[in-house]
């Protein structure tokens, strides 16, 4: 500050770098991995592996209830999990019952079926192997009702066809008839409500996939009340890794979680480099000033 006031040194100017340069770096860090389809492998941690193993050991024709409890804003994080688990369940020939306790989940159920299940598993028959039950209002109250009587709330599927016309619905009386419940979301209502109102009272295994932000709130429920949790993009990528290890054919496929992880890793590196850069500048400047003032103070 003292002395050569009008001529700022390069270091001084860099310290107040135009933030648009940071913006540009972030944009590039996010877009490039997407464009090149770059992915990042994640070693599977126990909390994810356990859910994978549970599904892996389900006998064929087991009944898995998938609840799509998220919306478009969290879809980039959650959708890869839904895709991975749907793939895995379909590999195991389980029956998939898809529903939503979030209104926004309805569309996402549809796109999971259209974009993942139908093209990759043409052998899966609607009404026999999988069904889209759609959204019902009621939040945790809905779960409570389903716990006692499933068909009281779901008298039709999402398309309005009477529920008893589907062979796969005939043995379903209440939630206790399911071998596993997986909730995708982690907001309210979500995994926690599934645990409290279905998993705990009925001793039904519950698993979940949630955003990174809500994951720490759910970790306490593992391993007693939750089979396993996928937390954020990392959890999704870990599950995909487990899937590829077991079913190598998926190694060639584009995996949403691993791709998101790549974007994440690159942008985290960029942000951290900027932070380190800023600190380096700060210390250089401080050293310079100390020299100028003769090291005193």
């Amino acid at each position: 500050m003292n002395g050569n006031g009008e001529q700022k040194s390069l270091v001084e100017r860099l310290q107040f770098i135009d933030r648009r340069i940071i913006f540009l770096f972030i944009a590039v860090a996010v877009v490039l991995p997407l464009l090149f389809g770059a992915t990042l492998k994640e070693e599977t941690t126990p909390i994810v592996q356990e859910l994978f193993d549970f599904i892996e050991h389900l006998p064929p024709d087991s009944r898995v209830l998938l609840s799509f409890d998220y919306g478009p804003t969290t879809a980039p994080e959650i959708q890869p999990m839904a895709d991975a688990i749907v793939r895995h369940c379909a590999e195991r020939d389980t029956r998939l019952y898809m529903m939503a306790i979030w209104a926004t989940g309805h569309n996402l159920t549809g796109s999971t079926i259209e974009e993942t299940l139908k093209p990759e598993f043409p052998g899966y028959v609607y009404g026999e192997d999988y069904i889209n039950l759609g959204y019902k209002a009621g939040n945790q109250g809905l779960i409570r009702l389903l716990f006692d009587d499933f068909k009281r709330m779901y008298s039709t599927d999402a398309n309005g066809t009477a529920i008893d016309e589907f062979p796969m619905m005939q043995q379903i009386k209440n939630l206790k008839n399911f071998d596993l419940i997986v909730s995708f979301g982690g907001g309210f209502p979500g995994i926690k409500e599934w645990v409290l109102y279905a998993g705990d009272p009925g001793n039904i295994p519950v698993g979940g996939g949630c955003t990174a932000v809500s994951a720490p709130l759910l970790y306490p429920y593992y391993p007693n009340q939750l089979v396993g949790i996928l937390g954020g993009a990392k959890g999704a990528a870990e599950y995909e890794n487990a899937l590829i290890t077991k079913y190598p054919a998926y190694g060639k496929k584009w995996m949403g979680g691993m791709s998101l992880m790549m974007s994440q890793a690159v942008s985290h590196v960029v942000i951290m480099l900027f932070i380190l850069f800023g600190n380096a500048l700060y210390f250089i400047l401080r050293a310079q000033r100390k020299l100028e003032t003769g090291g005193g103070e």
Partner: protein
Amino acid sequence: MKRRVPLTIVFIVSLFMVIQYFVPLDSWAWMYQYLIDWTIIIGVFALLLGIWSLLRVNYEKIQRKSENWQYSIVTLLGLFIMIIVGFVPGWGNLENYTYQHLFYYVLVPIQATMFSLLAFFIASAAFRAFRARSALASLLLFSGLIIMIRFVPMGPLSEPISEIATWILQVPNLAAKRAIIIGIGLGAAATALKIMLGIERAYLGRD
């Protein structure tokens, strides 16, 4: 009179709300539900006040030809088109095609994009604020970096880093949040009590 009536209303209504918390009977539950329903309906009436304010501000901008007045036309056009689409007699509900499409193809993309601006701002804020200027700032910097570095593959270092990160999230993080939450709980309860008793009354204005 102008002051006493509102304060009395506040006291009676809030006292009822406190007591009903402890009484599980049907009649109380219904009364509670009614009160909640009523406040929601009053809130919709208030929207009219909002729309009125929006109209006035923008109309005056256009009339005075103040800076950027042209854009006020855009606001008013958007407002009127959406209202007309939403209220046209005969369409009569929110399921109609145009209304839904305006929602999905105008509102949703803008909303999601505004939200995603945070990715940029969180980076610029981190660059500016995460500097080791003081001991406290260094702590902020350090714990922020530890948490962020988890997402980067670091080979053999990944394991210990992720353990430290988890510890920070589960231990000091929990402690601090709990202290803040307790403070908030007390402060909020105290403010609520002051409102009940008519001590905190800034919200009623002074005239």
